[in-house]
C-alpha cells in the first residue's frame, strides 16, 4: 500500500523530521564531544564514564522524542479518520494501512536523523576547534568522525519505528462504515486499568519514602551514600510519575486550568485541554521531564552553593568549590535543555494539529456568536492551560528533587533543610514558557479565526 494514500501531504510529518533531526544532532554532538574529551584525557577510565553519562542524556532525549512522535502520528491520523475509513471501505486492510504509516514515518525520521547527525558532527568539530584556539583543549590529533555515530542514527530510526507503530494503533480501530458517515465518529474513550493506578501510586510512594531516607542519611553525615540513595529515590519517584503520567498530568492540567476563569472561551479551552487525557499527557510529558531535570540540577546546585556560602572555611576553598559547582551546573543544564526543546517542538505541533481537527467545532462557535477575539482567547488559553501546568509541575518537582539531593550530600553541615532557589534559571523557564505559549497558539489562532462558519458547516 502506498503511504501517500494515507498521508495527505508531507507537511504533516515535518514535526517528525524536525524532532528526529534535533535528536540526531544532539546525540552525535554528545558522542563526538565525549570522544574528544576522552582522547584529551590521560586517565583511561575517563572515556568509559563519559560514554555512560552521554548515553543517559541521549536516552532521555530519545524517550522524549519517542513520546513526541507517538503523539504526532496519533494526532495526524485522528485528523484523517474519514480518509482512512474510506480506504478501509474500499478494501484496504488495517494492518496494511498501519505498516504504510510506519514505513513513511520511519523513512521521514531516517532522513531527519541523517541530516541531524551530519549537523551534530560538524558542530562538534567547530566547538573542538574553538576550544583548542582558546586553549581549553590541548593541541593534538582529535577524531573528526567516529564509528559510534552509527549508534545515534540507528537509535533514532528504531525509536521512530516503534513510536510510529504505537501512534498508528488508532488505525486498527477505524470501522470501515465510518467512511460512509463522512464524519469522524466520537472520541475514543481510553480507560486506564486500575492496575496502572495502583502500581504507579506504590512506586511513587516508595520513591518518596526513599527520598526521605536519603535526607535523613544526609543529616546524619553520609555523603556519597546519601546521594546514591537520593538518586534511587528520585528515579523511583520519576518512574512512578511517568508510568502514572496519564493519571497525574490531566488532573494537574484540569486543576490549574481553573485559574483561567469561567468565561465561555476559558471553559471550552480548559475542557479541550483534557478531552483526550492520553493526548494531553503525551503533548506535555516531554515538557515536564525537561523542566524537571533542568530545575533539579539548578536547584540542587543552588542549595549546595547556599550551604557552601554559610560554612566557615577558607576563602580560597570556598571559591574553588563554587567555581566547580557553577561549571558543572552550566554544562548539565545546557546538555539537558535539549530534551525540553524537543518537547517544545512537539507541543507546538500538537496544538496546531488539534486546532485543525476542531475546524468544524470552531465554525459552529463562530455561527453561534463567538467573535474572532474569543476564538483567539480560547486557543491561547488552551495552550496556557497545558504548557503552564506542565511547567509549574516540572518546576515544583525539580525544586523538591534538587534540594533533597543537596540535603543528602551536605545535610549534616546545615541547619535544617535548605531549599535551592535558582532564580535565574526559574526566570528563564518562565520567559521560555510565555514564548512557548505564544508560538504554539499564534499560527493555530490565526488559522482558527479565518475559519468561515459556512465552510466549516458545509463539511457535514
Amino acid at each position, binding site marked *: 500500500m502506498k503511504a501517500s494514500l494515507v498521508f495527505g501531504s508531507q507537511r504533516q510529518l515535518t514535526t517528525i523530521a524536525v524532532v528526529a533531526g534535533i535528536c540526531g544532532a544532539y546525540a552525535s554532538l554528545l558522542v563526538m564531544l565525549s570522544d574528544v574529551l576522552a582522547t584529551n584525557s590521560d586517565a583511561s577510565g575517563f572515556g568509559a564514564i563519559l560514554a555512560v553519562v552521554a548515553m543517559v542524556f541521549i536516552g532521555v532525549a530519545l524517550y522524549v522524542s519517542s513520546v513526541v512522535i507517538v503523539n504526532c502520528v496519533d494526532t495526524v491520523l485522528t485528523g484523517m479518520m474519514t480518509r482512512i475509513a474510506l480506504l478501509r471501505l474500499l478494501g484496504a486492510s488495517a494492518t496494511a494501512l498501519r505498516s504504510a504509516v510506519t514505513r513513511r514515518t520511519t523513512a521521514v525520521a531516517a532522513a531527519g536523523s541523517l541530516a541531524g547527525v551530519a549537523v551534530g558532527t560538524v558542530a562538534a568539530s567547530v566547538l573542538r576547534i574553538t576550544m583548542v584556539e582558546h586553549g581549553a583543549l590541548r593541541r593534538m590529533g582529535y577524531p573528526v568522525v567516529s564509528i559510534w555515530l552509527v549508534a545515534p542514527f540507528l537509535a533514532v530510526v528504531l525509536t521512530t519505528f516503534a513510536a510510529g507503530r504505537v501512534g498508528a494503533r488508532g488505525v486498527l480501530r477505524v470501522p470501515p462504515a465510518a467512511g460512509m458517515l463522512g464524519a469522524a465518529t466520537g472520541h475514543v474513550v481510553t480507560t486506564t486499568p486500575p492496575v496502572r493506578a495502583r502500581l504507579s501510586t506504590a512506586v511513587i510512594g516508595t520513591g518518596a519514602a526513599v527520598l526521605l531516607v536519603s535526607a535523613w542519611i544526609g543529616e546524619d553525615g553520609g555523603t556519597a551514600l546519601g546521594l546514591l540513595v537520593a538518586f534511587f529515590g528520585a528515579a523511583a519517584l520519576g518512574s512512578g510519575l511517568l508510568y502514572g503520567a496519564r493519571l497525574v498530568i490531566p488532573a494537574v492540567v484540569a486543576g490549574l486550568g481553573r485559574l483561567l476563569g469561567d468565561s465561555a472561551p476559558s471553559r471550552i479551552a480548559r475542557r479541550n485541554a483534557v478531552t483526550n487525557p492520553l493526548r494531553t499527557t503525551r503533548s506535555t510529558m516531554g515538557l515536564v521531564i525537561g523542566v524537571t531535570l533542568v530545575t533539579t540540577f539548578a536547584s540542587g546546585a543552588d542549595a549546595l552553593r547556599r550551604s557552601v556560602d554559610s560554612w566557615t572555611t577558607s576563602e580560597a576553598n570556598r571559591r574553588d568549590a563554587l567555581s566547580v559547582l557553577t561549571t558543572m551546573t552550566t554544562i548539565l543544564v545546557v546538555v539537558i535543555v535539549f530534551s525540553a526543546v524537543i518537547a517544545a517542538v512537539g507541543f507546538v505541533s500538537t496544538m496546531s494539529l488539534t486546532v485543525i481537527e476542531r475546524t468544524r*467545532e470552531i465554525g459552529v462557535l463562530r*455561527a*453561534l456568536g463567538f467573535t474572532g477575539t474569543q476564538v483567539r482567547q480560547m486557543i491561547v488559553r488552551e495552550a496556557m492551560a497545558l504548557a503552564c501546568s506542565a511547567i509549574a509541575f516540572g518546576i515544583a518537582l525539580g525544586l523538591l528533587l534538587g534540594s533533597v539531593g543537596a540535603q543528602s550530600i551536605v545535610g549534616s553541615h546545615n541547619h535544617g533543610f535548605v531549599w535551592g532557589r535558582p532564580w535565574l534559571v526559574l526566570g528563564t523557564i518562565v520567559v521560555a514558557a510565555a514564548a512557548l505559549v505564544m508560538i504554539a497558539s499564534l499560527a493555530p489562532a490565526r488559522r482558527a479565526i479565518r475559519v*468561515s462558519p459556512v465552510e466549516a458547516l458545509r463539511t*457535514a
Partner: protein
Amino acid sequence: MARGLPVPSVDGMTQTNPPVLSIRAATKTYGTATAQVTALDSVSVDIDAGRFTAIMGPSGSGKTTLMNLAAGLDDPTSGEVWLDQHPLHSLTDEERTVLRRTHVGFVFQAYNLVPTLTAYENVVLPFDLAGRRLSSEDRAWVDRLMTELGLEGRRDHRPSELSGGQQQRVAIARALSSRPRIVIADEPTGNLDTRSSREVLDLLRSAVDDYGQAIAMVSHDPVAASYADRILLIADGRIVGDHERCTPEEIATLLIGLEVGAA
C-alpha cells in the same frame, strides 16, 4: 448598532408589523468569471415574525445559501439583507457576530453541540458567549425549556452520552434560550428517525404557537414542511412558489412539479 430606515416591503405597501427578515434583490455568485455559479439570483423575500416558514427546493437550489445570508454567515454578492431592521450586508464581521449572537438561533442537521460542554452548558452557551449572567427570569426560562423539551434528567450529560433525538432537543433549547428574533433550522430532522423527527417538528411548531417564535426551516422533506405556516419553493437560485400551509401530499406534488418543470 444603528438602526436603518424602514425597509420598503416587497409589494410596495407600508407594513404595520415589520418582518423579522427582509431580503432585497440578493444575488450570490461563487467562482471566477470563467466558471461562475449563481447560487442566488436577485431574490427578494420577507420572513414574518411569529410564523413558521419552510424553505424547500431540490439539492443545489440555493436554499442553504439563502439561510446563510439570512443569518449573516455569508455576504451577498449584491443586494441587501435586513435582520430585525439591521443592515447585515453593511456590517463588519465583528458587528454581525454580535448581532447573530443576540438575534439568531441555529438548529443544524448535524446537531453541532460543543462536545466538551454538558447539555445545560450548551443551552446557556449564548449567554456565556455574550458574557451575560443569567437573570432569574432567564434562568426560569431555560429551566422551562429544559423541562418542556424533556431534558431535565440530562442536564449534566455530554453530547456523546445522548441519542440523536436528545441532542437535537438540546440544540433546540440552545436556539430558543436567548429568545432570538428568528430561529434558523437547516434540515433539523435530516439525521433523525421518524419518531424523533416528529418530536422535533412538534417542538418547533409549539415554539411558534406558544412563544410566537419566528422560525425559518430549510428542508426537502414534505412531512417536515407540512408543519409550517408558509412554504417557499426555491429552484435554480430563484423563488418559484409561495404557499400557505399545505398537506404533505400537496407539498410532494409541488416538489415533483419543480423537478418536472426543470426537465
